[in-house]
């Protein structure tokens, strides 16, 4: 028997709290003391209230985050994951159209042996022919490189510096005035209307030559 002068220690009170939680029997001596000692009974009530408060806080906090809707969604997600349990991971082909082409190309890359032999023969022939051509070039006397004919009007020929070549047989001589008048006629045609403003700004040969001293 625990006398009222010796109150229950905290650990004994906690055992009483746990016993109440588990639904098991409280220690007989402690129960008798609690029945007689209001101070210890008050301490036990205080302890129970404190622990219940902690629990209620945690429950409220968790319930606020995990609402019934979220619980339902989570259940669905779990069942969805279970349905795919044990299945091999699906590889997404991306992009599908290109992957199809790539696969076809990969299949066509498997070349038969004759293709390899033909490629080797082609390489051999190419190297042989190249060697022969090179040898023939070395044996041949160096030939004068024909100059590229360059058409230069005779009037401009004196202005061109060497190594320009003058054409030995120039184009038929044409009268400058006739050429320019032909040009003016062409410019005045209906297809060159867009160029007319530029034409208006361009001085005429005849006008310029008349003004010359």
């Amino acid at each position, binding site marked *: 028997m625990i006398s009222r002068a010796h109150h229950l220690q905290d650990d004994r009170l906690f055992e009483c709290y746990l016993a109440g*939680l588990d*639904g098991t029997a409280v220690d007989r001596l402690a129960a008798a003391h609690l029945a007689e000692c209001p101070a210890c009974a008050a301490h036990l009530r205080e*302890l129970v209230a404190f*622990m219940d408060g902690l629990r209620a806080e*945690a429950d*409220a906090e*968790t319930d606020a985050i995990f609402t019934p809707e979220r619980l339902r969604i*989570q259940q669905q997600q*779990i069942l969805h994951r279970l349905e795919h349990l044990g299945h091999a991971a699906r590889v997404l082909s991306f992009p599908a159209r290109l992957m199809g082409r790539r696969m076809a190309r990969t299949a066509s890359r498997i070349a038969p042996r004759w293709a390899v032999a033909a490629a080797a023969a082609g390489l051999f022939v190419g190297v042989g022919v190249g060697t022969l051509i090179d040898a023939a070039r070395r044996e041949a006397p160096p030939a004068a490189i024909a100059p590229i004919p360059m058409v230069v009007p005779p009037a401009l020929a004196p202005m061109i510096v060497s190594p320009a070549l003058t054409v030995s047989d120039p184009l038929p001589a044409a009268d400058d005035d006739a050429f320019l008048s032909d040009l003016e006629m062409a410019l005045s045609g209906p297809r060159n209307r867009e160029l007319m403003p530029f034409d208006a700004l361009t001085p005429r040969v005849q006008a310029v030559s008349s003004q010359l001293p």
Partner: protein
Amino acid sequence: MSDPGPVRYPASPSAPAVAAQLPERRSAPGKLADDTRLAVEIRELVERGHANEARERFSGLVAAHQRRALRVAYQYLRDGADADEAVQDAFVKVFAHIGSYREAWPFEVWFTRILINGCLDRRKARLRRDRWFVPAEEARGADEARRAFGGASDLDPEARLLARERRDRLDDAVHRLDGRQRTVFMLCHYGDCTPREVSAMTGLNESTVRVHLFRAARKLRGLLGGKP
């Protein structure tokens, strides 16, 4: 404050010892709890190749343990998305390994052990990640908002603020507990586990579990302003 490490099973429990460890508040000694019986049935269905039926039955287990599992996971991880994923992973793992389940242990003990090991792994991974990356505060903001307003929407703003402050103080106090004290306290208080079940989950002696629980409660009372 150190992590308690993975929860261990005691080595090969004998049948009488197991019968003695069954929780009185859930089932009588020697009688299987409902969830344990359901787990055994699911295991047999899987072994017979009836996967679809097993999945349907498993949804009952999910519904029975989901809320408690989320409460435990959230208290460990303090992040809604993390807790959500941890609980999903635990259920998937349980179903994938249901063939190895033995009714010698209550299903709740087995499941909670898997869940807590997953939570501890996630905490370690988060610690490693946080060394290199800035923690995503904005992602936790949504949880904070729900914590502050979702659960106490009927309260006035002052009461909501006070409730939030109380929760923050409680979080801080719980995380200042020693690793084993915290584990035991969380399992008993948030996980609805008896000291016997916690003993089965952690491999600690039942009296040791009671001592840890008592010390945790005393420390919390001291930290939270109650009588130590």
